[in-house]
């Protein structure tokens, strides 16, 4: 029998929880209507959508009307960043983020930079943490927005969002705070009542929900210009039709994740710790990338395996039925090493030789054991072929 694929790239997407399908099916087979306020069919959907919003809002202690459905995390990031900047550009055109942010933020910022905005890109420390002090030092009278990636998508480092909020609240003028929570949602508790977050993007498929939907949290009093125009079917910010069945699946996935968040995250933490421990104990010349312990998200392990290259490691794992990620240039779109690792001060070899393993609630100990056993063999074999390892031995 063919071996089942071991999927350890859960920061990209996760396996849908089987329990969401029943819920979603109903909307595709029977209740396939869009919401409306006059006819019965539409009204029913309206009230269902309100329920989903209430369910999702509860997971972050936000009001239902602060939840705006979107076509995924990237859409939410676009609506928030563009919306804030277009609504506030008369107050200033200076914006801040960091060089290690998620591409959604960086590409949006690059777009505005070309359109005349000035951007300050903050630098991280060697763990990937961007300090609140750096944010404080970067604020200018014309600063209007700071955006951050709560959990770094490459190394899993958790950014000090509460400290950022405090800095922004203490500033002498209004600076908005946008957070990409793609990797953070469902990984630790969040309370929108006690943060200064203005807008936050969340994606359903990172928490075992369906692909293609997400939400934007928007604080009630935070003004956003509308950037997606068209008919208002489901949401006034993400106009047009939307996949209602997937929104139902999203709400269900959130319900499952947050029913016992402590237990969910403990399982992820135990899995990733076990994987890290075995790798560090059993493979020589390996370094952890990103913050250690509680400073990193519970599902992410990123290591640099010296003297060998990540695409080759990833390919060998792949041919052995294991899916993982690498920061190697050879596996990237623009043939560049991971910009996050390079910004953290890792050298080329460490960036090219980085491997990222992200676990989910479905990951088993047997899968992790198989992965490490294979990885050990792969590292020995690739080092046998490596001139860099030869040089090290000759020294």
């Amino acid at each position, binding site marked *: 029998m063919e071996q089942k694929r071991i999927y350890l790239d859960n920061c990209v997407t996760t396996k849908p929880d089987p329990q969401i399908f029943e819920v979603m099916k109903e909307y595709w087979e029977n209740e396939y209507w869009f919401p409306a306020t006059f006819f019965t069919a539409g009204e029913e959907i309206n009230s269902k959508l309100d329920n989903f919003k209430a369910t999702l809002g509860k997971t972050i202690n936000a009001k239902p009307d602060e939840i705006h459905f979107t076509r995924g995390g990237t859409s939410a990031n676009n609506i928030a960043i563009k919306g804030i900047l277009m609504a506030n550009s008369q107050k200033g055109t200076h914006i801040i983020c960091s060089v290690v942010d998620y591409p959604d933020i960086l590409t949006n910022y690059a777009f505005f930079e070309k359109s005349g905005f000035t951007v300050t890109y903050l630098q991280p420390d060697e763990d990937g943490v961007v300090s609140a002090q750096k944010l404080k030092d970067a604020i200018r009278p014309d600063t209007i927005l700071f955006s951050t990636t709560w959990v770094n998508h490459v190394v899993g480092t958790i950014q000090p969002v509460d400290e950022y909020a405090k800095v922004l609240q203490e500033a002498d003028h209004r600076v908005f705070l946008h957070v990409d929570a793609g990797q953070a949602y469902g990984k630790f508790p969040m309370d929108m009542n006690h943060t200064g977050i203005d807008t936050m993007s969340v994606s359903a498929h990172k928490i075992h929900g369906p692909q293609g939907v997400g939400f934007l949290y928007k604080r009630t009093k935070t003004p956003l210009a509308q950037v997606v125009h068209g008919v208002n079917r489901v949401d006034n910010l993400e106009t047009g039709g939307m996949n209602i069945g997937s929104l139902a699946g999203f709400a269900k996935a959130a319900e499952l994740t947050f029913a016992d968040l402590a237990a969910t995250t403990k399982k992820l933490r135990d899995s990733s710790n076990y994987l890290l421990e075995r790798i560090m104990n059993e493979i020589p010349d390996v370094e952890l990338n990103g913050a250690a312990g509680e400073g990193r998200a519970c599902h992410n392990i990123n290591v640099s395996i010296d*003297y*060998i*290259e990540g*695409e*080759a490691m990833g*390919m*060998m794992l792949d*041919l052995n039925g294991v899916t993982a990620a690498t920061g*190697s*240039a*050879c*596996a990237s*779109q*623009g*043939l*560049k*090493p991971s910009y996050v690792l390079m910004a953290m001060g890792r*050298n*080329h*070899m460490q960036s*090219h030789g980085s491997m990222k393993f992200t676990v989910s609630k479905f990951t088993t100990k047997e899968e992790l054991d198989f992965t490490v056993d294979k990885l050990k063999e792969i590292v020995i074999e690739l080092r*046998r*072929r*490596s*001139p*860099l*390892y*030869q040089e090290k031995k000759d020294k």
Partner: protein
Amino acid sequence: MQYSQKVLDHFMKPHNVGEIKDADAVATEGSPACGDQVTVYLKINKDTKIIEDIKFKSYGCASNIATGSMITDMAMGKSIDEALKITWRDAMEELDGLPPTKAHCSVLAADTLHEAIKNYQIEHGIREVADFSKETIVAELKHIIYPQVGEDIVTLKMVKYVGFNAGVAIIDIEIPSFDKYRDNVAEEIREHLAKYSQITDLQINM
């Protein structure tokens, strides 16, 4: 899977991996900064000039290892003159092709083989050290692949001007500002020309 079965076979079970302790010629090309480095070792019969043994080591991706394996297979048993005629395109064809972004791996493998042979020829008085000129730079640029299409930048007519005077090399490349391989191409040019001490100032205009 973007790789051919042949690439995967040579990657998983490469031929000729290792080193030759008393090699007659050795060459190393690439660097960890580029993400790939290859060393080729040759044992050459001093009378017949036949390559009697060849080994390689590779720090690089799957296609890098596969092209190292293939090119050493192709050179084994050939005379050094014949081996010099093996091009990166030959190696790539033998592997049933490579994705365009990986064509540079084939170039690196072929370059390393050729460099090892040239080192041998220079050491044995068969070849003279070439004078450095503008043509040397152009020849190097022919080894730089534009990853979008897997073809070199000279053939693609992306090189608009090459000048060399008193240590200053000026290269004009036509590549759009939004091209995702822009930095990669510039980096490759710097990497390829780094070995020429004659260049004291390299200016790449894009």
